[in-house]
């Protein structure tokens, strides 16, 4: 590195070169007498400066690319949600029985473990919610976008809340998990529109869904849920919290176990 700096100062004229040579000789003599090689302080300074630039520049670059990934779209709140960051209450037309516990489900539409959970326990939970025996709240996260290098968690989340506008959140949600692509492949726009249709959104309602989807009406909402749930300590999916207690899915892995846990939590 010391070599580079002397090369950079090499002057063009012969006179300059002689002067530079003399200076160079002095520098080399000084270095020989001190450490027998390159000037350690100069090299250390260069290394420290490069290190600081690399770390600070890297942080700024990462923060910028993160903002690029998550902006764009509207900041609407789905019906039944009162603030950005809050979970989405499903089965809003069902009146829960007295003392029904709240089951909060943290999911990411691209998470394979969430699909496993949905395949095994999804219908059990939905039946209980339909009967009003549990208040079901979904926290739709999108952290896998960053991990997988795409934006389909956010887009599928947005699409699900566009379906909620038509009263079809749950049906869309179930379609998306039943047809989840291999991790990393992501959904396609057509696929998500297909889920909306399969969820029972047709005619002008489907046009409205498409407009909502294209506008990214709920993108900010999905981002806000990701952030607030992470602050609440949820950095993995699926996470289930029953009346605020995180469930160990190893302990409630069967429909019977989960049903029993929900019954136990009923006041």
């Amino acid at each position, binding site marked *: 590195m010391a070599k580079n700096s002397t090369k950079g100062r090499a002057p063009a004229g012969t006179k300059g070169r002689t002067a530079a040579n003399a200076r160079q000789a002095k520098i080399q003599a000084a270095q020989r007498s001190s450490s027998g090689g390159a000037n350690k302080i100069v090299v*250390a300074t260069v290394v420290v400066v490069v290190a600081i630039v690399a770390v600070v520049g890297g942080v700024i670059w990462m923060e910028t690319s993160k903002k690029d*990934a998550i902006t764009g779209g509207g900041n609407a709140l789905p019906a039944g949600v009162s603030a950005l960051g809050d979970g989405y209450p499903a089965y809003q037309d069902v009146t829960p029985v007295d003392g029904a516990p709240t089951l909060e489900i943290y999911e990411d539409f691209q998470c394979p473990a969430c699909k496993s959970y949905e395949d095994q326990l999804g219908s059990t939970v939905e039946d209980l919610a339909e009967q009003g025996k549990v208040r079901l709240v979904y926290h739709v996260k999108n952290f896998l976008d960053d991990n997988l*290098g795409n934006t389909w968690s956010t887009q599928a989340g947005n699409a699900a809340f566009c379906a909620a506008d038509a009263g079809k959140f749950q049906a869309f949600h179930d379609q998306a998990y039943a047809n989840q692509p291999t991790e990393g492949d992501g959904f396609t726009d057509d696929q998500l529109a297909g889920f909306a249709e399969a969820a029972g959104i047709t005619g002008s309602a489907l046009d409205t869904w498409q407009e909502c989807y294209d506008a990214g009406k709920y993108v900010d909402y999905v981002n806000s849920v990701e952030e607030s749930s992470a602050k609440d300590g949820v950095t993995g999916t699926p*996470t289930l919290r029953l009346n605020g207690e995180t469930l160990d899915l190893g302990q409630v892995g069967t429909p019977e176990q989960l049903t029993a846990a929900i019954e136990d939590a009923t006041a």
Partner: protein
Amino acid sequence: MSVTVDEVDAEAAVPWYRRGRTLDVVGLLARLLLGVVLVWAGAAKVGHPLTSQRAVQAYQIFPFELAGWIGLALPFLEIVVGVLLLLGLFTRPAAVVGALLMLAFIAGIAQAWARGLSIDCGCFGGGGEIAPSATRYPEEIARDTGFALAGGWLAWRPRSLASLDRILFGH
């Protein structure tokens, strides 16, 4: 001339595993091990800012925002220290920082284990909460201990083969 003969005699008197040359090779291996691991660990996180932030936040040690900034800076710190070790440039300070990083990781993993969190260490990307049965705390701690020892060796004896320290500074 007699000095040279004495040196040869002295060198012949010590067992092979304590000769300077052998120890220099150990130093080179330690540099390569810790250097490759740090560069690999850092590079795996670059381009995944949110994942890296969540990995640090999952340890629940620092305040959420601070953990986020650590998550953004850590990959580049790892790469810088790793590259210095691979080059053998300022081996001792780089090894001290590398070993301290490993000790910090071990402490983080140990406290997560002790507090009953179930997280992936996020050492090479990924991270965050996982199923309790999927945690690998003992393996992660054992592995990082090995890396910390490599750093400790170099902090104690930074001399090694094929280092920029030797080329530039003659030691």
